[in-house]
């Protein structure tokens, strides 16, 4: 008996120890970033290093809020990610409905096409996009960003929504068809209202992808009026390489929408993350 209890205590201690190491590994960099944003620049590299700021200051945040150029980065990011999310959702809902309720020629081909789209290197697409965007005279516009972002938001959204619609019983929309309604009515009146959890998951994940995009935003826009948050941070890094507290404050503000979405819609968020890899 004594041996047995000893055997179960040791694994428990080791488990807690492992979790503690994991906690430091996963969260320390983030906590350090957050507290650095509340320090003065001289205090950031103070020796010995201190986690909590000695002179707590919101100066870095105030500088950002008082600079219209930096505020504009945020407005641009919210606008572009918002529009991309709406457009992606509408198109993905239509496609997912087609996929989950009908069988048709080329269905499998189209499915493979959509899955393989996930893995096409952005850098490969970037060069022809640059050529196209210049040729269509939409270089340095919101349109160029919104349009090109769809290439990687759409495949995920379609896979996620199709997966979700496949879980809904066919009797649900067939009832509308039997009553003489069209599939269009069935989709918007019956399927969409009951798919809200799936739509939220898709929206959250699409927003995340669009919010984080870097390469196309870097290359297809040029004027400060159109720069998004990731590019704004990069510019800040290049111009004021020593204003660490301001860069950390930018990073905190730039992560905020995703953190809030994650905490509010955690269940949906995880569905989005694992879509396509675990089951597709």
């Amino acid at each position, binding site marked *: 008996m004594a041996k047995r209890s000893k055997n179960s205590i040791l694994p*428990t201690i080791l*488990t807690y120890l*492992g979790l503690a190491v*994991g906690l430091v*590994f*996963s*969260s320390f*960099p*983030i906590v*350090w*970033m957050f507290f650095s944003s509340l320090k003065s620049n001289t205090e950031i*590299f103070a*020796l*010995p*290093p201190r986690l909590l700021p000695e002179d707590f200051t919101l100066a870095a945040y105030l500088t950002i809020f008082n600079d219209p150029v930096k505020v504009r980065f945020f407005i641009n990011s919210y606008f572009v990610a918002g529009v991309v999310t709406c457009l992606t959702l509408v*198109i993905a809902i*239509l*496609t997912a409905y*087609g996929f989950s*309720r009908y*069988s*048709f020629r080329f269905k499998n081909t*189209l499915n493979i*096409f959509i*899955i*393989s*789209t*996930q*893995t*096409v*290197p*952005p*850098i*490969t*697409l*970037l*060069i*022809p996009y640059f*050529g*196209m965007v*210049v040729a269509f005279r939409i270089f340095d516009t919101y349109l160029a960003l919104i349009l090109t972002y*769809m*290439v990687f938001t759409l*495949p995920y959204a379609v896979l996620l929504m199709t997966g979700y619609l496949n879980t809904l019983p066919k009797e649900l929309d067939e009832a509308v068809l039997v009553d003489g309604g069209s*599939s269009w009515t069935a989709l918007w009146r019956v399927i969409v209202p009951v798919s809200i959890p799936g739509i939220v998951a898709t929206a959250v994940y699409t927003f995340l992808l669009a919010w*984080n995009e870097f*390469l196309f935003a870097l290359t297809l826009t040029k004027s400060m009026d159109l720069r998004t948050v*990731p590019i704004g*941070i*990069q510019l800040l890094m290049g111009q004021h390489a020593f204003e*660490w507290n301001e860069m950390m404050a930018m990073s905190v503000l*730039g*992560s905020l929408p*995703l*953190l809030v979405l994650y905490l509010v819609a955690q269940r949906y968020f*995880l569905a989005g*993350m*694992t879509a396509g890899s*675990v089951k*597709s």
Partner: protein
Amino acid sequence: MVHSAPALVAAQVNARKKRWLRYSTLSKLVPYFYVSPATFLLVLLMLFPMVMVFKYSLMDGAIMKKDAAFAGVQNYLTIFENPVFWQSVGQTMYFTIMSVVFHFIIGLAFALLLNTNRVDPLIRSILRVLFILPWLFTAVIIAIIWRLLLDPNGVVNSVLMALHIINFKVEWFSSTHTAIHALTFANIWAGYPLYMVSLLAGLQGISKELYEAAGIDGANELEKFWYITIPQLMPIIISIALLDFIWTMQVFPLVWMTTGGGPIYSTEVLSTFTYKLAFSQYEFSLASASAMIILIISMSVTYFYIKHQQRR
């Protein structure tokens, strides 16, 4: 005008038949109506650009010259002769393979830790939320966090010196010896949660009876892990590792924001090599050839990924 009853019925039947015929041919088109917007967009944004980049890669002076001439495979040969290209290939492979291996190890370890019932459920669910956090940060912010932490005067050096592990300030990102490892470490930190979340879902899907049966047969914990847990998780491990391999191979923002490929090409990866050819040197044809090479590698791994997904 008065119609006789049978004629009226016949007319109605006829009309209904016609409507039905029209309806059934139309109804065959319905699915295409639903999938056409996405198909159109993806053809415009995927197939067309891929044809274009292939065409550029066979030309001399694409985008820059109005009358760019056909150059055949010359651009590919030029790329293959460039030693920096081969250095980038090697560094990309080191970065990718190390990332995939450690993502898997850390992801699995955390998933196992979070899956035991030795720990209070509340603590488990809080840690579950916290362990995913690195995944929520965009590459630019990850780059900036690690530049702060790994700064010569930063906290990592201070701690390592206090523990007497190092005795001078290491310039993690600006030394040719350490930059690629520092970069790989930052990427490992940023990417394990995908594995953790997926493997945790996988662990919860394994039937308890399998473990009980193995216990009756006298298997110990290690044997249970090796002969039940790992085989049961294998399909998930393979799909995520393949996807992760493809995505990590294409990494751009993290490298661009930490080292920019330097110092002296020591962290140059295929995507930064290609980007510089196009947008620093304006060699769009050479860049297209390099981009085609990345595409071919990605697509060959994608082939295995799709095969694997369809077998499941």
